[in-house]
């Protein structure tokens, strides 16, 4: 009796807490409720990245009496080799993962096949029943648009965290908060109705981009075709709203499929539009000319004597094609993209002035796009400039920028001289459906509205019959732009080898709504910016104008005189008017 009493006291009093805990642990388990990541959509709500249900298929090895038979049964359904499955089924583990992130249809097929197999068995064949398979629910990331916005969106790693692109830079916002619940455990199965203390999983915040999927597709196809036909190493197209900085399309080629990344190199996963830098070439002349007009050093009709080649600091600089001396206006210099003419315009500015305007246009500084891995480009300080730096910089070489920076320069001209930082984020959607728009972008005045208008008028001549990019003209619309065919620096040889062909423009020229930049790196054969970039620009801009229902402005332009002869003729015909302008 005394021993009995002592035992009772021992169990009920002294060790009561530990026994209670032991019992609870035997009976109860805590499971995690996985939270889905937020969705990334385009501006119209079309999903570009979303979390979908997936099933991790696990087995209880100790419940598999015949691994070989079970492997042969499951292999065709799971699409896995029999030998691999046999190895996975052999052992005494209660939990063994055999298939990660299976589509629910695969699990359903397996479950149905097992059910059919077991139902068809004779009662005497009870030991041939298959019972060891269990599903564990999880979320996987799916990219419905495949390769469409691959370098921008990026992807998640095995643990479900963002690894590249926006999936990485916005990871903390997109990631949800897991919930949990406890349940009573009976022979390894959850006892129905025993769940308690449920903390609901909270889905991540969804991101709405400024990207328009349809425009993105047109841009992607156009640049992919151009890169393929020119055997170029890569190409980008960026479509931007100059007033808001919103990026409607951000296409790169080559690209990769986000849903199938097994054989993708790290190089292919880069975002070249913000990570790759190059010397812009003639598209940089816009900044030199805009600065000179802003400083009242030249007007659109100032006449220069343009030689084929010019010597500065012991080095000769020349135009693309040999020619006799020409008397061209500033507009004419831009239309034919004369290097020597632009050097002469640039010499009207001091080195500090030229450097400052380039900096104000965004060269050598971040655009503020927030895109991961963005490069600032390279613009050396004036103190490092040699005698040949200023002339080189004037016509667009000797400094480097990204395609995003180049687009921003032209967007500044299109936006009446105000540079707005680009963005791809329109806003965020909480799990409850509330949409919060992104903050307005920062802006900075670079040149006056009057100067911007003059430069726009001059740029229209580039797409005229006298310009370098008639292939970029869109019938019915006023289009302005500039071609670029820059010598390309090759890291491997440490020399200039190959070209960067580009065309950047906007439409309608007198009331610009969208800016499009086309950049093609290292094309083989014909490598001119107008020849390669112009048609891509036209294809994409035509689609943008149609899909956004932008009608032509209906205004007519009086062409600006490109040379002294036309200037004198224009002055003779209209002695009281200037020789340029739009009606």
């Amino acid at each position, binding site marked *: 009796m005394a021993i009995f009493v002592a035992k009772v006291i021992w169990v009920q009093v002294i060790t009561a807490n530990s026994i209670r805990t032991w019992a609870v642990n035997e009976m109860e388990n805590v499971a995690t409720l996985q939270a889905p990541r937020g969705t990334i959509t385009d501006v119209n709500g079309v999903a570009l990245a979303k979390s979908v*249900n997936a099933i991790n298929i696990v087995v209880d090895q100790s419940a598999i009496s015949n691994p070989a038979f079970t492997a042969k049964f499951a292999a065709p359904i799971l699409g896995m080799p029999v030998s691999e499955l046999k190895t996975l089924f052999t052992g005494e583990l209660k939990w063994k993962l055999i298939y990660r992130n299976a589509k629910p249809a695969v699990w359903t097929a397996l479950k149905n096949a097992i059910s059919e197999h077991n139902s068809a068995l004779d009662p005497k064949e009870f030991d041939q029943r298959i019972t060891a398979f269990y599903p564990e629910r999880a979320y996987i990331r799916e990219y419905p648009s495949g390769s469409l916005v691959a370098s921008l969106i990026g992807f998640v790693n095995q643990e479900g965290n963002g690894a590249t692109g926006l999936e990485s830079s916005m990871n903390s916002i997109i990631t949800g908060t897991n919930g949990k619940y406890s349940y009573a455990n009976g022979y390894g199965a959850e006892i*129905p109705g025993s769940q308690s203390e449920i903390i609901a999983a909270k889905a991540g915040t969804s991101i709405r981009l400024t990207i328009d999927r349809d425009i993105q597709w047109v841009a992607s196809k156009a640049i992919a075709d151009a890169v393929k036909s020119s055997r170029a190493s890569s190409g980008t197209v960026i479509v931007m709203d100059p007033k808001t900085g919103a990026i409607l399309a951000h296409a790169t080629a080559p690209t990769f499929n986000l849903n199938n990344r097994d054989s993708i190199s790290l190089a292919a996963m880069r975002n070249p539009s913000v990570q790759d830098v190059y010397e812009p070439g003639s598209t940089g002349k816009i900044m030199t000319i805009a600065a000179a007009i802003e400083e009242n050093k030249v007007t659109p009709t100032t006449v220069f004597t343009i030689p084929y080649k010019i010597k500065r600091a012991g080095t000769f600089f020349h135009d693309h094609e040999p020619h006799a001396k020409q008397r061209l206006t500033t507009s004419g210099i831009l239309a034919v993209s004369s290097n020597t003419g632009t050097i002469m315009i640039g010499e009207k500015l001091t080195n500090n002035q030229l450097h400052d305007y380039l900096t104000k246009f965004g060269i050598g500084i971040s655009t503020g796009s927030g895109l991961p891995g963005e490069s600032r480009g390279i613009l050396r300080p004036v103190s490092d400039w040699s005698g040949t730096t200023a002339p080189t910089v004037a016509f667009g070489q000797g400094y480097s920028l990204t395609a995003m920076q180049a687009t921003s320069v032209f967007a500044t001209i299109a936006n009446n001289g105000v540079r707005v930082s680009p963005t791809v984020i329109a806003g965020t959607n909480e799990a409850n459906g509330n949409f919060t728009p992104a903050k307005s972008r920062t802006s900075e005045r670079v040149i006056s509205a009057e100067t911007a208008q003059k430069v726009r008028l001059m740029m229209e001549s580039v797409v005229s019959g006298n310009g370098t990019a008639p292939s970029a003209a869109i019938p019915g619309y006023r289009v302005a732009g500039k071609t670029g065919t820059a010598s390309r620096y090759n890291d491997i040889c440490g020399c200039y080898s190959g070209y960067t062909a580009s065309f950047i423009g906007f439409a309608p020229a007198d009331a610009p709504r969208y800016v499009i930049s086309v950049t093609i790196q290292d094309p083989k054969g014909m490598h001119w910016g107008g020849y390669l970039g112009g048609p891509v620009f036209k294809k994409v801009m035509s689609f943008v104008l149609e899909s956004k229902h932008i009608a032509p402005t209906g205004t007519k332009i009086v062409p600006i005189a490109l040379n002294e002869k036309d200037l004198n003729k224009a002055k003779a015909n209209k002695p009281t008017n200037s020789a340029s302008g739009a009606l």
Partner: protein
Amino acid sequence: MAITALAPAISRSKQKVIERSSEVALRLVPKLDIDKRADQKVFILFLTGIGALGLVALLFINTLLAQDAFKLSKLQLEARLLTDQREAYIRQLDRISSPMALAAAATEMGMKPSANPAFLNLDEPLVPTAEAVAGGSIG
């Protein structure tokens, strides 16, 4: 008549109450014979019956609760399957409605992307000629 005249009657009443109370008190304790003890079996049976009824009732209530729990579990499983199906349909729809699929379907139908934007001139007849459409202007 003075109240004090009643004193002897009161004393006699008190004596009678005392005697009767004793008799009553004595009567409360019956004289027990061995063969006249109270029967416990009925009481035990009664308690057992109550206990059994209680257990049955408890079992019944638990069964009802458990039934709903199984039903809930079944419905939750059904909901998950329907969610999976819904996602599969959405995936199919995404594929069909993608720009690539639409372009391929249009090409199959013999349509071609227009080279230039086309314009409708409302002052002219609205039915265009094929040449006008190919040339990028209508009317």
